[in-house]
């Protein structure tokens, strides 16, 4: 046996060998230490339930009314646009085009032609009920933020803006100041709406902007997708993510994407200047708020591309790759520690896709009370 060979070095060699082996074996353990994440940068599952503002509790009646309004082009100047024209359930409650096409257009999503070019990409309605949510699950639905520049503070307020907007719904049929009154009067002349408003808000209720906003907001609060595979994983189902997706989750955290994309919605709901390239279709550069735009959610991106406020990136991989040479204009961006290696990007993209949840309300009404085409001019 070699151990008896007189030429072998002394026994100390074998002791050394054993020590080397044991020190390698003890390098790692079966319970690795997780990357430390400060509480305000942690990510996690969405809550099971939505909070509604005190003055607009969600009721089935309001939701049904809101759904009708959401689909009815009667809210638009030329009876051609409904909310759903740009936020369609078949397209994940958005329109899958870089920049939305508004008044005067025809068709839906990629098939849409004509229409006024809107300067921004349409975000999804899914989970907007949770806008502003923090790590503790807290948010005030009557005082949060909506739009890429955070200019609207509740779903109630937000839903009146497209009605007033010339490009999105109003056209040149009336002025922005007249819009809500004109639309309210139109609704008051349709018996089915009068009945629906009475059921939702009490007998002899007056149809006005406040109630239109409340009904649409109540409906939007039911467009929820809070059971993605990531949510299941975060709630304790270890089998919900595969190794590649967990790699992506860890890489996402390690790269400090969570400096901004954090909380249950993967957004801090703050404004940042990332220096996203311009979309050449736009005649004028959109500067947001001093060059800043709000961190968007990373949920349900499978159906909400193209990406960024101006839809300048066609796919998730290019949106993630963008962070490689990003200019650093704020403290949160300075935390980025992103390795632009193809394998890391692929893992992060795989992880972001686990935030998709296709199980949201996709109901398409057969008709709307105005009798107009459901969803506006969406069939070519």
């Amino acid at each position, binding site marked *: 046996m070699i151990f008896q060979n007189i030429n072998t070095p002394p026994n100390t060699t074998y002791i050394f060998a054993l020590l080397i082996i044991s*020190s390698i074996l003890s390098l790692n353990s079966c319970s690795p230490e997780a990357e430390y994440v400060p509480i305000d940068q942690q990510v996690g599952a969405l809550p099971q339930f939505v909070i509604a503002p005190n003055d607009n509790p969600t009721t089935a009646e309001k939701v049904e009314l809101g759904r009708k309004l959401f689909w009815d082009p009667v809210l638009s100047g030329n009876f051609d646009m409904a909310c759903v024209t740009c936020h369609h359930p078949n397209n994940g409650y958005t329109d899958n085009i870089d920049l939305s096409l508004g008044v005067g257009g025809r068709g839906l999503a990629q098939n849409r032609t004509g229409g006024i070019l809107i300067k921004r990409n349409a975000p999804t309605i899914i989970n907007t009920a949770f806008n502003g949510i923090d790590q503790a699950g807290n948010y005030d639905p009557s005082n949060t933020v909506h739009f890429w520049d955070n200019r609207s503070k509740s779903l109630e307020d937000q839903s009146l803006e497209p009605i007033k907007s010339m490009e999105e719904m109003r056209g040149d049929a009336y002025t922005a100041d007249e819009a809500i009154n004109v639309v309210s009067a139109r609704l008051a002349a349709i018996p089915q709406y009068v009945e629906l408003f009475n059921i939702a808000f009490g007998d002899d209720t007056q149809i006005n902007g406040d109630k239109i906003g409340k009904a649409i907001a109540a409906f939007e609060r039911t467009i929820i997708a809070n059971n993605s595979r990531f949510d299941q994983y975060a709630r304790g189902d270890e089998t919900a993510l595969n190794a590649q997706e967990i790699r992506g989750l860890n890489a996402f955290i390690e790269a400090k994407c969570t400096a901004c994309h954090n909380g249950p919605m993967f957004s801090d709901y703050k404004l940042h200047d990332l220096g996203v390239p311009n979309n050449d279709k736009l005649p004028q550069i959109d500067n947001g708020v001093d060059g800043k735009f709000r961190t968007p959610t990373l949920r349900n991106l499978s159906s909400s591309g193209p990406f960024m406020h101006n839809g300048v990136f066609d796919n998730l991989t290019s949106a993630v790759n963008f962070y490689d040479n990003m200019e650093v204009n704020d403290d949160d961006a300075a935390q980025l520690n992103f390795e632009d290696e193809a394998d890391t990007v692929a893992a992060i993209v795989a992880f972001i896709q686990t935030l998709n949840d296709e199980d949201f309300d996709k109901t398409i009404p057969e008709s709307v009370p105005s009798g107009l085409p459901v969803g506006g001019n969406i069939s070519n």
Partner: protein
Amino acid sequence: MNSSKLTFLILFISQLCFSQSNDNQKFQLGLQSNYFLAGELNATYDISTGIEAKYFLKHTEKFHHFINATFTTDIGTTGANLFVYDIGLGSQYDFLQLFKKPLFFQLNAGLLYWQEYFSTQLIEATISNNTSQLGFKANLGIGYRISNKLNVAVNASQFNTHGTTIGISLHYSF
């Protein structure tokens, strides 16, 4: 660098001082250090270290056939640990004599069993998970016998379809 890694390094260096001449070289014990170049594993790990045992079945003039077994683990990763055990067959081919010592190619391939442990800090909970899998491993290297006791080599290894590494190894013969 944590203390166990430091001890390991010190021990390894002192180990090198023990080279003595020995012709009866049936066993080799080696250390490897690998850098992840590509593949899924590359998204999580940068470097790994391994210990390899080789048993030479047959020495011909130029060919040396062996059985090998390796244990590989990652270094310096947070949130994940990798353990790879593999066993295989291989050959070493001396193609050139340089300063009276052979320069050789080596090729070996075999089966691997791999385990990974993950840990992630999420809101209100740290989620842990693990996976294990069987697969193949292949290794191609070019090496030099710097003394009767010591071989150095540069290797490219493939861990299943999930990772490609390049690295260096040092083997001690006895």
